């Protein structure tokens, strides 16, 4: 037993813990949570950019001179901690959801899309990345997606 003590101690001081972590996300990046009632009101062909902005507020990202507005939900699902004695590292797994509104040159809403991509470690929130991730039918061309999807609302 005494001979195994260093090994036991080492096992106690080193390890990896993975735990569900959704409720601990206090980042505030939740603008993509749009109610069903609001979604129904913001119908393509009827609603305008003004209607969208007044209903769900300013977007997280705007592209193409305001013709594409993106509302983002940063959903962390799991976190992990790896520790060795008094040092360690941590990370997270989650999904970035994007609700995209597309407008024509006159500001009329012409389409809505939901895109999502899973991430490991850290979410990539750079505008350039989000621009690529929310291009129409561009989700499959993204690098390191690991589960990217793109679908029309209600499908």
């Amino acid at each position, binding site marked *: 037993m005494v001979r195994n003590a260093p090994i036991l101690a080492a096992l106690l001081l080193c390890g990896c813990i993975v735990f569900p972590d959704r409720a601990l996300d206090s980042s505030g990046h*939740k*603008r993509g949570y749009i109610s069903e009632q609001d979604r129904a009101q913001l119908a393509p062909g009827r609603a305008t950019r003004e209607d969208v*902005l007044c209903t769900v507020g300013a977007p997280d990202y*705007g592209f193409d001179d305001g013709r594409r507005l993106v509302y983002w939900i940063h959903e962390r699902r799991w976190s992990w901690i790896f520790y060795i004695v008094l040092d360690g590292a941590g990370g997270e797994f989650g999904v970035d959801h994007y609700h995209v509104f597309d407008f024509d040159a006159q500001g009329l809403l012409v389409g809505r899309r939901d895109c999502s991509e899973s991430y490991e470690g850290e979410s990539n929130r750079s505008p350039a990345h989000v621009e690529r991730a929310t291009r129409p039918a561009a989700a499959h061309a993204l690098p390191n997606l690991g589960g990217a999807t793109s679908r029309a609302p209600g499908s």
Partner: protein
Amino acid sequence: MRRPRRASALVLALLAGSCGSTYEMRRVALPARLEWLREGVTTRDLAFTLLGEPDASFEGGRIATWELEADGSRGPAREASEPQWAPRSLVVVFDAGGSAVRVSLVQTW
């Protein structure tokens, strides 16, 4: 034997809480700090004077948005590369004469 039960209950509660909850943006009433902001009355000049430059504008400035704290005050400016963070989003639509014709405050988290 009560301590293990309490510990188990605590662990279960933490796990249940960690399952998360959804949140939906919704329009809210203007706080007292923004009572001066009225549709058909407030001008663009007054809005820009009291609120400062908007965080974003659309359609050539016809629609302006400000990111606000819950009490209606301006928070610290965000980095251009970062997404929106503020708990309130104020949207004001101006007509050609510069009067506010539509005001909306959305609670974003």
